[in-house]
């Protein structure tokens, strides 16, 4: 799995390429913790190349959610494929996280907040 990071209009964009499972979750966890430490609380998660997610991957976002919300931040996911979305839905996480179609919509979520 590979993670790309870029700054776009003050938002931190993370691109996750590959499988986010129990062997790779720690990498994403480190990146998100670094973002929080650098006071970047608005995170766009581009899931275009995210092929697979397991509970370990979901756990990373769940475990950081409270901290980011306390700073008026959030994770906004976009370009998510159906299989990955189904995993979020299985646990009701599609109601907890913003999951939108594309990057424009993802940025709109932050501009509205």
């Amino acid at each position: 799995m590979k993670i790309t990071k870029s700054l776009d209009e003050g938002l931190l964009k993370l691109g996750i390429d590959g499988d986010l499972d129990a062997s790779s979750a720690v990498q994403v966890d480190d990146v998100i913790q670094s973002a929080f430490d650098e006071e970047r609380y608005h995170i766009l998660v581009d899931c275009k190349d995210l092929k697979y997610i397991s509970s370990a991957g979901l756990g990373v976002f769940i475990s950081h959610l409270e901290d980011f919300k306390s700073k008026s931040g959030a994770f906004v996911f976009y370009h998510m494929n159906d299989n990955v979305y189904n995993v979020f839905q299985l646990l009701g996480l599609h109601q907890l996280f913003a999951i939108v179609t594309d990057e424009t919509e993802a940025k709109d979520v932050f501009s509205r907040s």
Partner: protein
Amino acid sequence: MKVSYLTPCRRQHLRDIRQFVHQHIEQTGMSDVDRHKVVLAIDEACANAILHGNDNDASRQLQIDLFLQKSKLKVEIYDVGDYRPEKKKWSMADIDQHVKEKRKGGLGLCIMYRIMDSVSFFPRKLTAKQTINVCALVKSWV
């Protein structure tokens, strides 16, 4: 038909396990959505066995047996660990509580119970001195 896969207890092998499972359930009559979910449930079971039952110890082995029938898949995952969680404790997840407690783990079992028709953990005695741990999963389809 029965197919088996043997692998060291290392989390880095989870991807290979998923590929093995996917390859063998591809020809069943299961829907695409269900196939993906079943791969996920087996991945969760193996991740738990590797990490919680065997401390990611590559000197130990994990065996996955798939029993493929016309409209039913039975899975047995064997290891030498002793990870046998209670169903009552883990089958339902309180997501709000996970968020509040900033928990990273604890959702894998919930996923397994939600996807599969049955999930069970039990010891199986092989010899007078050797007992293995079994996680059995069943999924049927029409």
